[in-house]
């Protein structure tokens, strides 16, 4: 059961081979057994989850179920969830029970999915290893001495360790794709604006995008069907016709045959993503995956993203700038942490924020405050925004020559817990391949494609043009039909 696809689970629930309450219990028991070690969840509330499961069963009994009705889903603790603690991995919100639901939570609720719990994450989604969480690091289920990636490390771990059939996550610079790669699961960051940000605690508003994590492209497509869609409460939410992301999963590429379903697909391979910094084990797995795509009929096209080397510097100006402002609301006045002792108002602010935020969050607030401050704005913030456009234009050029861009999701497999905590710059560079898609607003996904050093998973990064999620998912699905990397699960958790 725990390795079943969402489609299979959905069918089993619809056929009443299993109830939602039973299914939810299976996962709650697994969490009970394994979470102490893995630390994937911050909040689990069996009573609430089982009540939702009971409602889902009633709905199924009435014959009113949707595809995800009764399926337990773990939510990154960045999504405000009414009546649930919503901590964002921070001491600042350790006592914050959200009075409202995020759009995404509402959509899953309307679909009849069960809230399985709230997953651990880097504090305010700032991190690439899940080590900045106030609730302690999440372990990589493939080897617990290693990080699961971040910031959606808890969601990635939960799916990889089969503590949840599926999970939600968010991605500002790679926070869905990098942990998906490091834990051997499939994750998708949609085009900016496809998933409403309402109720998703903001890190960097112009980059943040919610998306799903699952065991396969097919699972991810089913989840995206629920998450995507217009929301009038988010001014950057796109008014588009609803899409069915699962409909064309099996359809061969235009003009291709079932035998070579990706005949005609042009895969852009950017030379900049295969140079210095890419570890050889990851390089080999990516090379093998590209060869597999060629067998499926796809063609490689050499492309260049000449400015992609500037993406990390630009990102570490833009994201902290927006974050420094987004996090100003955490002031100890209306919710969340307030320092127990202070002299006056100014002291209350300074102590509250100093004690409530962890080191990485404070570091980024300071960077952001600096780059926006008088005399530095043009040299840093405005400059970074111009560089951002150069990076976006690189993709416009690239997509004239290819249909998707592929490369490694992360330059290395998972690293050891503690290995990069004292060196922020090294940590930041682990998102070097994923950040450009955030800057450009493009959809990107990571698909498991083998193993590298220490038998740790490697992820293949796929970037598509705006709104090409359905095509990307189909490309990944055809690959997953031909391979079984996505079916591998870490031995220690079964």
């Amino acid at each position, binding site marked *: 059961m725990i390795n079943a696809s969402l489609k299979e689970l959905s069918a089993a629930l619809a056929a009443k081979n299993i109830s939602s309450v039973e299914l939810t219990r299976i996962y709650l028991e697994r969490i009970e057994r394994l979470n102490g070690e893995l630390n994937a969840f911050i909040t689990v509330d069996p009573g609430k989850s089982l009540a939702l499961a009971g409602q889902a069963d009633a709905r199924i009994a009435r014959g009113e179920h949707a595809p995800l009705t009764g399926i337990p889903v773990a939510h990154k603790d960045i*999504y*405000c969830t009414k009546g649930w603690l*919503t901590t*964002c991995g921070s001491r600042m*919100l350790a006592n*914050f029970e*959200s*009075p*409202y639901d*995020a759009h995404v939570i509402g959509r899953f609720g309307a679909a009849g999915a069960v809230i399985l719990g709230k997953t651990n994450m880097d504090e305010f989604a700032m991190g690439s290893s899940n080590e900045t969480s106030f609730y302690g690091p999440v372990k990589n289920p493939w080897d617990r001495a290693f990080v699961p990636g971040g910031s959606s490390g808890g969601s990635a771990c939960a799916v990889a360790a089969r503590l949840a059939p599926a999970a939600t996550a968010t991605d500002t610079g790679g926070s869905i794709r990098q942990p998906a790669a490091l834990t051997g699961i499939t994750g998708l960051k949609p085009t900016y604006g496809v998933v409403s*940000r*309402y*109720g*998703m*605690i*903001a890190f*960097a*508003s*112009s980059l943040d995008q919610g998306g799903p994590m699952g065991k396969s492209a097919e699972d991810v497509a089913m989840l995206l069907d629920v998450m995507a869609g217009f929301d*009038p*409460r*988010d*001014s*950057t939410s796109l008014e588009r016709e609803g899409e069915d992301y699962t409909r064309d999963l099996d359809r061969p590429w235009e003009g291709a045959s079932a035998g070579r379903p990706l005949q005609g697909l042009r895969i852009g391979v950017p030379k900049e993503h295969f140079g210095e910094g890419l570890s050889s084990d990851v390089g080999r797995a990516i090379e093998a995956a590209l060869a597999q795509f060629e067998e499926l009929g796809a063609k490689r096209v050499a492309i260049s993203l000449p400015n992609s080397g500037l993406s990390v510097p630009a990102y570490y100006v833009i994201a902290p*700038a*927006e974050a*420094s*402002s987004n*996090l*100003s*609301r*955490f*002031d100890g*006045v*209306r*919710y*969340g942490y307030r320092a127990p002792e202070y002299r006056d*108002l100014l002291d209350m*602010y300074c102590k509250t924020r100093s004690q409530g935020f962890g080191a990485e969050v404070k570091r980024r607030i300071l960077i952001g*405050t600096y780059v*926006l*401050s*008088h005399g530095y*704005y043009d040299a840093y*913030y405005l400059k970074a925004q111009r560089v951002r456009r150069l990076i976006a234009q690189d993709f416009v050029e690239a997509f004239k020559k290819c249909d998707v861009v592929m490369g490694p999701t992360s330059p290395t497999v998972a690293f050891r817990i503690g290995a990069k905590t004292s060196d922020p710059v090294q940590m930041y560079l682990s998102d070097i391949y994923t950040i450009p898609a955030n800057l450009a607003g493009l959809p990107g996904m990571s698909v498991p494609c083998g193993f590298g050093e220490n038998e740790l998973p490697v992820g293949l990064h796929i970037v598509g043009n705006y709104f090409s999620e359905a095509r990307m998912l189909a490309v990944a699905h055809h690959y997953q039909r031909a391979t079984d990397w996505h079916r591998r699960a870490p031995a220690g958790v079964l």
Partner: protein
Amino acid sequence: MEWEVVIGLEIHAQLSTASKMFSGASTEFGAVPNAQACAVDIALPGVLPVANSGAVERALRFGLAVNGNNADNISRRSIFARKNYFYPDLPKGYQISQYELPIINGGTISIVLKDGQKTIHLTRAHLEEDAGKSLHEDFHGMSGIDLNRAGTPLLEIVSEPDMRSAEEAVAYAKAVHSLVRWIDICDGNMQEGSFRCDANVSVRRPGEPLGTRREIKNLNSFRFLQQAIDYEAKWQIETLQDGGTIHQATVLFDPDSGETRAMRSKEDAHDYRYFPDPDLLPLVVTEEWIERVKGGLLELPQAKRERYARDYGLSVYDAGLLTQSRETTVYFEDMVGQLGTEAAKVCANWVSGDLAAALNRDNLDIAQSPVPSAQLAGLVARIRDNTLSGKMAREVFDAMWRGEAASADELIEKKGLKQISDSGALEAIVDQVIAANPKSVEEYRAGKEKAFNALVGQAMKATRGKGNPAQINEILKKKLAG
């Protein structure tokens, strides 16, 4: 040597929308604390702003109104930016405002002064959200925060430093106040804080570059505006004359002491770290929208003033008084409609004179006047046909104000106030007066003007005040000359 005072105003006009600038909470005044502060207004984690088209539309109306209905001062694309600072009544830790690209660039407001008109130039007007309120009553040594006002849409109207006295500043503030009510974008209620002024004041020797300015914050009455500027200007001049220097500062006006003092909370060097709000895309105003707003605009004060001067022969000053509010012009135009253009001058005198004084005394708006325009027109008609003298008319007006009768004619009848304009009757009375006061007649003929007035007084007395004074004058002159 003389000093010149240089003043620019920043006016915050609360826009009269039903809902807030970026949320669906009500803007109504007077709710219990925080009852109108929704999730967006209190900045819960994860909430997002969505801009109110009603606020944008009101800004467009203002832009057209200050630019002769020409849209070249309206930015087709403007940007919402974040102004970052910490304050308990600012829930997000930033205020959404417009910085580099405001929705309105430029425009003019013309003000009417005793000695003529003056044009004040606007730098810009931009949309922003209001902050909440800190209540300083003592809550065990703490302050209470009410966020009902947080997020209310404001139009910040920034003038050039074009004013040279507190009187000009007040005239400008009044003109803007009248305009925003005229075009129905702000209720103008100053007690409730719907219309607030900040004054930038500096002094210099004429012809020299601008001096260092100090900004007086939050002046919520025209009287305080006047007092605060007068005090501040005097203080700056004295400081400079004593060899001191002026430092840029933000100051508060204390109405009790009549003095200004620097704000302690603003001692920090300002560094608002403005940047475009990533939650809000560029605000685009289409030509169709502008055309629609243009179509809905009424005749504006300036145009009305010009028309009154041209068609009714009113002085600029008189026309200026009438056009201080739209309601006043409606009242006045009603009267002229009934009595004809020739009566405009008398109507204007009554509206700006006795009526305005009575309204002011009883603290009423013209719309609430106990004497409606038709009644006052009836009264003016009796002045024009010489039934009533000025003095009698005032008596009738007072009686109407008190509600003693609904028409002038009824009161004239009731009080027997008909003026004697029958020249035969008046000639007889004048003859009697001349006969009875030979001494005065003699003095007058000897060149003493005063004696003439005494004779008029006698004649008026003989008619028990009902004689037409102009006529008596004329008859008397003729007879004494003869």
